[in-house]
């Protein structure tokens, strides 16, 4: 039976099944959009936190570290309450749309990227602090230099965020609603197809997810070697 399922799953992938690739396409669009938004906000913010010592620094890092482990389903619930018709952002009318899914994944990635960026830039600042101060650089120049010097590590951080978001199911299920041809992504489709007994498509999507995870791990490993 397993062999048959795998055979059909591979067949769906090789024949470029429309449904399968529509789901993959939306998943990548949502996750990449969330990643770009999260990284654009979190990398400068994490680096800023590492460089500028102030009384709120430890508190923000603590909150960010705590939110890293937040269950996606709780985050989904929180966003649901905010963007549902009765929520304070209900007027935006984004519930059960890809926008709400991007929002959920962005909020999921942000603490991960902030915390990991903070760690990397903090370490690098320790190494380069004397040199950068000796060159009499202003804080903005220091920040730019440190981010550049952490470039490989920060790509790894971004990939870690991508991995977390692409494998997440709870939040996008709640705020996206898993609507066919509209908000159905790989993880929600796997859950849905399995529940209705259409295991072949679920396995095909699972294989793609494993492949994505494998590629991310390979990239992270190579980047660690370079850096």
């Amino acid at each position, binding site marked *: 039976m397993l062999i048959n399922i795998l055979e059909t799953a591979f067949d769906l992938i090789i024949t470029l099944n429309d449904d399968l690739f529509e789901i993959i396409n939306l998943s990548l669009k949502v996750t990449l959009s969330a990643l770009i938004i999260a990284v654009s906000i979190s990398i400068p913010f994490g680096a800023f936190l590492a460089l500028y010592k102030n009384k709120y620094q430890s508190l923000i890092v603590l909150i960010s570290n705590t939110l890293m482990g937040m269950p996606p389903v709780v985050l989904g619930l929180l966003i649901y309450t905010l963007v549902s018709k009765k929520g304070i952002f209900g007027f935006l009318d984004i519930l059960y749309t890809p926008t709400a899914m991007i929002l959920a994944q962005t909020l999921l990635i942000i603490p991960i990227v902030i915390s990991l960026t903070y760690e990397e830039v903090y370490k690098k600042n320790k190494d380069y602090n004397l040199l950068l101060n000796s*060159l009499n650089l202003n804080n903005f120049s220091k920040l730019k*230099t440190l981010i550049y010097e952490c470039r490989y590590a920060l790509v790894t951080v971004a990939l870690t965020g991508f991995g977390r978001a692409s494998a997440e199911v709870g939040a996008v299920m709640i705020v996206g609603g898993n609507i066919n041809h509209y908000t159905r992504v790989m993880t929600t489709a796997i859950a849905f197809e399995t529940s209705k007994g259409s295991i072949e498509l679920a396995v095909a999507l699972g294989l793609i997810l494993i492949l994505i995870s494998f590629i991310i791990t390979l990239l992270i490993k190579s980047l660690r070697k370079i850096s």
Partner: protein
Amino acid sequence: MNILPLKVKNLNYVVNGKNILKNINIECNNNNVTIVAGNNGSGKSTFLKILHGLIKTQNNNKIKWGEFYISDIKREQSMVFQTPILLNRTAYENLLYVAKKKNITEKNYVDKIIDKLNIKNISNVNTKYISGGERQKVAIGMSIIGNPKIIFLDEPTSQLDPAYKNDIENIINELSYNKVKIFMTSHDISQIKRIGSEIIFMDNGEIIYHDSVKKFFEEKQCNLISEYINYG
């Protein structure tokens, strides 16, 4: 711009209740190489970092370079550290980075520095992959960009073999010849003799000797200095 004499008055530096520098008073008018010597933990490196403005004390205004405070002439100073601090880039890119930060627009400026230090063979190699001596040469190259008037060298040759030591001493002598004021910490007695003009000897956060290197080696009164010279 006249950066000498260097005058330091009643400088103290306390960290966690420990007096790292105690009541430093000094007037330095020597425009050649000044060696800052002393046993480990005597406060040499801290003193250099304070003079360079890397460590801020509550009384930094007790230090004057000619008519200027440290903050006024920070751009005229540079420092080379015992363990070279280089960016994760090629030697050329490290030099180019400093040149850009110092707003040097002259074409081929970095190439000239590379030629001067004779490091063309490693200019396109990431500094992770070059030897300690080569790293130190790149760090010195970074420090001379923009023709600073004062260069601090914190034991720049302590980890180098004789050939690189000789190369770097030649660079230091050339800088000094070209009117760059050099402050350098060293434990190497023969090196102090070779390149030092005046010496500041420190012990336990205090300056206990400040005179010419020639007189330092004739000093018989202070046991600590005699021991330092004999065991060095």
